[in-house]
């Protein structure tokens, strides 16, 4: 068995169209992605597990408001934020997932708590949040998750819909 490691990350495919991406914004995204890679690679360099590496990398992505998860999550049509996350390890196919949660700083850690602390694969809503509290995971107030660009994107989308427009621009999905 090779002793090498490998790590890949993504920050979403809802990218700005090339023509609208400024050099400054691109540099910001590249720097953020590099920082995320460094967070995950640090785990692997020390001989840590793939599971710990992907958890560390996704936590770093969730902490960065540039990306649509955790702190940079988009808003629903009702102006709320609902987050989903999942984790899976390939040796025993253990898996954990959460859906429709708001409050945990890092939803991926809540998904991992489902995997490691319950007999289940997915928990949603209040049941998932209760698990997070019992596991001692950090929670944040709504202000932590609010970002003006995501709020503005919601308003633009709602206005578009009010005019009968079809919002099929991939760059606006942030997904």
């Amino acid at each position, binding site marked *: 068995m090779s002793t090498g490691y490998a790590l*890949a990350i*993504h920050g979403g495919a809802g990218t700005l169209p090339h023509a609208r991406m400024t050099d400054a914004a691109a540099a910001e995204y590249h720097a953020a992605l590099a920082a995320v890679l460094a967070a995950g690679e640090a785990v692997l360099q020390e001989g840590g597990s793939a599971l710990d590496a*992907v958890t560390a990398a996704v936590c770093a992505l969730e902490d960065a408001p540039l990306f649509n*998860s955790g702190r*940079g999550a988009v808003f629903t049509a009702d102006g709320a934020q609902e987050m989903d*996350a*999942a984790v899976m390890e390939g040796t025993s196919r253990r*898996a954990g997932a959460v859906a429709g949660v708001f409050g945990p700083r890092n939803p991926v850690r809540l998904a991992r708590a489902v995997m490691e602390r319950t007999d289940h694969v997915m928990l949603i809503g209040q049941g998932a949040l209760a698990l997070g509290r019992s596991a001692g995971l950090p929670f944040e107030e709504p202000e932590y998750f609010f970002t003006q660009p995501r709020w503005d994107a919601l308003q633009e989308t709602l206005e578009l819909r009010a005019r009968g427009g079809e919002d099929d621009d991939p760059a606006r999905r942030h*997904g």
Partner: protein
Amino acid sequence: TVGAVARDRDGRLAAATSTGGMTAKAPGRVGDTPVIGAGTFADDGSCAVSATGYGEVFLRWSAAHEISARMRLAGASLEEAARHVVEVDLGAYPDSGGVIAVDAAGNIAMPFNCEGMYRGHVRTGAAAQTAIYR
């Protein structure tokens, strides 16, 4: 949506994905991210996958698991399996998104069928690389 896949020094694979969903989505809508086999999947014998994009499409195609199945059952390489799912299966839905994937040998594939995907990768002894567009 964000995600990560890794292969550690012991050959173990893992995947993780996290998302806020889609702007102005219907309250209660859940996409592929937390659905094991659609947006997140890992199996040491084949690959680990994390997806991003139009979640309903990834759900209908069981996209992440489909990549693993193509490797296990059809003998496809990681690159072949990931490209087929993203470009042929999901390709019927333009701009539906992409995946990142790693196999047991540490190979990495990152196909997408839209204009860009924020992404990056690093391997033992190699410099980290990041990219946005093709």
